[in-house]
């Protein structure tokens, strides 16, 4: 049996929508059929890992059992105790599988880890967030079955958007009112078609048609500009890749939100016109939002809180700069342990630190602010971002460190 990857072909959408039909009818009558929902979710997850991908399926099952066991044990412990070392030990164990999967290719010459599977990152984000909120006491009572449904929520399992346990619980526990649900459905249909346009028309054009052409040209020009390979074709590659990255991923995210809407679950949006951002801070509030907000709340805020409380730095500015650096370094390492992902992280840390310095400098000064300065800000931000995506793409690695044209 061949495996079925989520949102990849028309057949998948047809089968999925058919399978969801009873759920939609139920929700229209104000009822949420949770058992049926779980069965549909499970069937589609099985289909993802059927056939040649069965090993990944086994990894998923072991992984979920691991996370489930850890969180239940911690929930039991946290009822009456709250020692720091137990929390840190559990946190370490929750992160461990993801860390192994990310580090293995770097030390094993590009070989992927045996315990990896599509979606391990996104499941880990959910698990880590839930654990931290339990430590904080924000989650008072963890419901094991709800936690499983949350982890294995099918529309978002492979690539997000990343929901939060408490937010998911709110959606899951109540069926939306008829009016609310009709509104969700109409948005769901719109997102579905917007997703088709983004991923299969615009994203396809940039990624499948244009990208190979500019890549070939840039590789042919690799001796340009004194051997640095900086050529017009490389600049073209940068913009084409950036467009492809946005439309492909935004399209994918729209599908996930759309299908969640059909199921009456409110999944957060992932993109909000990121290329209209006026600065890098603004950009991270618009680009892959569920990830950047996750990093903001569970990494940046916690590092800031910790360093402020323990007075590691005298100046507030240094705290934020330190926290930004850690935040984006971790994000870089998470993308993968390669020089270009880590450079991408450091690049964004520097960009946001410079952005911060500029904003502080500007504060209280009467600098001109009009249509033109706005346009300039958007233009500069756009180019800084596209350059960061060129680093991220790994193309420079190919251009500089491989010899044969592939």
């Amino acid at each position: 049996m061949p495996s079925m990857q989520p949102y990849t072909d028309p057949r998948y959408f047809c089968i999925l929508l058919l399978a969801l039909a009873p759920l939609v009818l139920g929700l229209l009558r104000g009822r949420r059929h949770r058992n049926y929902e779980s069965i549909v979710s499970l069937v589609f997850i099985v289909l993802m890992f059927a056939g040649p991908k069965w090993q990944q399926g086994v990894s998923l099952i072991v992984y979920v059992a691991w996370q489930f066991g850890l969180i239940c044990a911690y929930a039991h412990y946290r009822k009456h105790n709250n020692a720091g070392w137990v929390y840190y030990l559990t946190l370490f164990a929750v992160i461990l599988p993801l860390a192994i999967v990310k580090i293995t290719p770097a030390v094993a010459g590009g070989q992927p880890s045996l315990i990896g599977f599509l979606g391990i990152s996104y499941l880990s984000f959910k698990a880590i967030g839930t654990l931290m909120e339990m430590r904080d006491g924000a989650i008072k009572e963890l419901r094991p079955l709800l936690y499983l449904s949350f982890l294995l929520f099918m529309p978002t399992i492979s690539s997000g958007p990343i929901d939060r346990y408490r937010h998911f619980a709110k959606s899951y526990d109540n069926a939306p009112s008829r009016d609310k649900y009709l509104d969700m459905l109409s948005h769901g249909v719109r997102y579905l078609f917007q997703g088709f346009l983004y991923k299969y028309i615009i994203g396809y054009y940039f990624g499948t048609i244009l990208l190979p052409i500019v890549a070939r040209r840039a590789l042919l020009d690799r001796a340009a500009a004194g051997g640095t390979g900086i050529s017009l074709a490389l600049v073209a590659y940068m913009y084409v890749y950036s467009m492809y990255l946005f439309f492909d991923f935004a399209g994918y995210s729209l599908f996930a939100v759309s299908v969640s809407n059909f199921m009456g679950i409110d999944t957060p949006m992932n993109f909000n016109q990121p290329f209209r951002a006026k600065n890098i801070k603004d950009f991270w509030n618009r680009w892959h939002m569920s990830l950047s907000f996750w990093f903001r709340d569970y990494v940046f805020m916690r590092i800031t809180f910790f360093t402020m409380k323990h007075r590691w730095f005298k100046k507030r500015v240094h705290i934020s700069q330190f926290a930004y650096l850690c935040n984006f370094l971790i994000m870089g390492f998470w993308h993968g342990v390669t020089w270009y992902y880590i450079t991408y992280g450091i690049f964004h840390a520097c960009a946001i630190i410079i952005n911060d310095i500029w904003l502080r400098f500007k504060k209280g000064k009467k600098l001109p602010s009009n249509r033109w300065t706005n346009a300039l800000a958007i233009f500069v931000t756009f180019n800084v971002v596209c350059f960061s995506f060129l680093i991220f793409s790994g193309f420079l690695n190919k251009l500089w460190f491989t010899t044969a044209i592939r």
Partner: protein
Amino acid sequence: MDVKETVLSILNDLTGEDLSDRMDEDLFATGLMDSMDTVQLVLELQEQLEVDIPVSEFDRKQWATPNMIITRVKELQ
């Protein structure tokens, strides 16, 4: 000092502006506060009013305006 005065004086330190006549202004949307200010606000509230606010309780939607902050603090006290 009561809760309102304390919150306003903390916010005054953080944003550099007197917000007493702008009690319903969204501090995040207007860019007056960012994540750093948020953490400092949480720490100051802990120190001055002895309310314990876990970072994960800090949902921006519930802490967006001076009035909302005062309400939340009173709830947590």
